[in-house]
């Protein structure tokens, strides 16, 4: 006797539809479209600056990056001869930004450590507010402050530096003129980027896994021992990323640099001497009396600056995201 085994009938799976309602489709469509505005704006900036700067980029070629001279003159036939080279200003940008970083990074890291591990609750609140406020100050305020308040002090510091470290080339000066130097511009920029670096570092430091902190204490570490063994290795990525975000800001700063710096179109590594420049402030300086051909050159300079800051920011965000993620 054999009973047929019951045939298993697997019913066909009910079809699950997740077709959103019309209202949802519209909502999603609109939101998704608008979310691409960042992409649109960034690419429009690149396209238009390239289009308007194309004439210069074509006529100058690679010389636009490597050339030293920036002049529009007329030859004997009365024809315009334009030579545009950004190198002096590019180097100036890098020099000023490095000075800013050298000053700002240690100060910011110390402040971030102080805020995260040392400060009493009340002082911490006040200082965090102050640092946030610093980020909201307009750049022209930094320019005014840098010119009238910081410069007299910084000139004195520059004299001290020259006196004691003058045997190093970069701290030497050809003439004893210390005002409006890259050193002072770098100091102003450093004050401007301290809030960025501090807040990024603080965020990363505060995400240090508490179990590792407690483990270090349990092994008998002092607070400083704990910070050196746990917090700094953990937060190094965040500090680097934050510094690069600050670098991006320093690259693009215009008004504050223009206010304090004596812009001279010459490569200058002697940071205490009164000449220098950066691309952004050069654009403002040349804009006023720019001829048609020069406007194209300034657009191209803007494009170079845009690409430069974009690269720095991309790298910085990459580093910061990785540093923050690694802790979770």
């Amino acid at each position, binding site marked *: 006797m054999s009973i047929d085994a019951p045939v298993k009938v697997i019913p066909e799976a009910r079809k699950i539809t997740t077709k959103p309602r019309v209202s949802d489709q519209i909502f999603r469509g609109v939101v998704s479209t608008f979310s691409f505005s960042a992409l649109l704006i960034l690419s429009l900036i690149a396209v238009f600056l390239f289009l308007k700067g194309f004439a210069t980029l074509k006529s100058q070629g690679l010389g636009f990056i490597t050339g030293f001279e920036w002049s529009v003159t007329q030859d004997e036939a009365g024809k315009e001869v334009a030579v545009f080279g950004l190198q002096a200003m590019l180097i100036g940008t890098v020099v000023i930004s490095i000075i800013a970083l050298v000053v700002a990074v240690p100060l910011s890291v110390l402040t971030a450590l102080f805020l995260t591990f040392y400060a009493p609750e009340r002082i911490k609140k006040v200082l965090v507010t102050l640092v946030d406020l610093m980020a909201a100050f307009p750049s022209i305020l930094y320019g005014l402050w840098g010119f009238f308040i910081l410069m007299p002090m910084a000139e004195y510091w520059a004299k001290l530096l020259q006196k004691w470290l003058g045997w190093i080339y970069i701290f030497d000066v050809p003439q004893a003129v210390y005002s409006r130097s890259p050193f002072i511009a770098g100091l102003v920029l450093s004050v401007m980027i301290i809030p960025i670096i501090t807040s990024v570092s603080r965020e990363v430091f505060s995400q240090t896994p508490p179990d590792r902190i407690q483990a270090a204490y349990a092994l008998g570490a*002092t607070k400083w021992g704990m910070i050196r063994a746990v917090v700094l290795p953990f937060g190094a990525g965040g500090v680097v990323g934050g510094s690069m975000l600050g670098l991006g800001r320093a690259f693009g700063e215009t008004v504050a640099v223009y206010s304090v710096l004596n812009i001279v179109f010459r490569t200058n590594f002697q940071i205490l001497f009164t000449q220098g420049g950066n691309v952004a402030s050069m654009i403002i300086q040349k804009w006023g009396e720019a001829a048609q051909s020069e406007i194209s050159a300034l657009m191209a300079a803007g494009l170079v600056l845009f690409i430069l800051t974009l690269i720095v920011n991309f790298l910085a965000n990459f580093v910061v995201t990785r540093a923050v993620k690694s802790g979770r």
Partner: protein
Amino acid sequence: MSAISNKPSVAPTRPWAASPRDRAMTALSVALSICATVLIVAATPMKGKLAYFFLFFITWFIIDSIFVARKSGSKGVKDALAAKVTLLGGVIVSMAVFSILWATLSNGIKGLNLNFVTQNMREASLFDPIGKGGILHAILGTLMLIVIAIIFSVPMGILTALYLTEIKGRAAGLIQFLVQAMSGVPSVVAGLFIYAAIILNTPLRSSAFLGGLALTILMVPTVTRTAQEVLNLVPGDLREAGLAMGATQWKTVALVVVPAARSGLITATILGVARIAGETAPLLFTVGVFDSYNFNPFKGDSGTIPTVVWAGLMGGTPESIQRAWSAILVLLIVVLIMFVAARSFGSKQQKR
């Protein structure tokens, strides 16, 4: 139970807390180092605030290290030194902030009078004595720019934030990346872009509208990032509750999520405005300079506070520089008010 509670409670001992003796030692070391600093400055050729400041910290490092070394050895010295060096960092940073605030207040207050905020510069030049003329036209111009920038950037920023938090589409990572990259666009590039794209290509000439567009580029990333943060703070339960009641996503977002994050979104807007209120470089390309009222945002230059400060600084005479300080004080007060408002709105949302 009662037996336990009736027992005299033992005060918790906190062996790590500073004992009165430790505190006395700290006070003594600070006092000693102040004396030593004054002595050194008086005895050697080193002079000035800088010398006082650093000598105090150096002598304090040394004197306190000796105290600590007696109590807890070389490890303790390093630890105490690290605490002081981080304190030094915090002190320098706050000195910079206070220096900026004090400079603005003390220099700006001298030129501030009723005329300064109720008149325009039509009848006066930058170089006239301070009582003549004012910056009302610039205040109104800046307000106009801010309104235009809000009209464009707040919808853009909040919708982008909604995409990142509510829809979480496939492009979310890319968009996040681009928004962060956009927050690094130099302000001068934003101005150049508007000039290249609009003034060189269309009959539109510099006006408040174009200035607002340039500022929008700078404001969108700030609004987006803050809005994203506050939308992430809205509890997921609320969204699920909305969907479970049978609402569509659109209804859930519009009637539940956004109202729940309302004060946070206002904070985002205010922070964005604070970011752009003092931007100068883009205005030089797109808005121009004007010395009287111009209420037409699409035609003609406008006066703005940052360009007044700029012109005053470039003017170089005592009167024009005084105007610059006073104008920046007005701007700073506005920024401070917005900053406080943003904080109070922000804490309101967190309390819920």
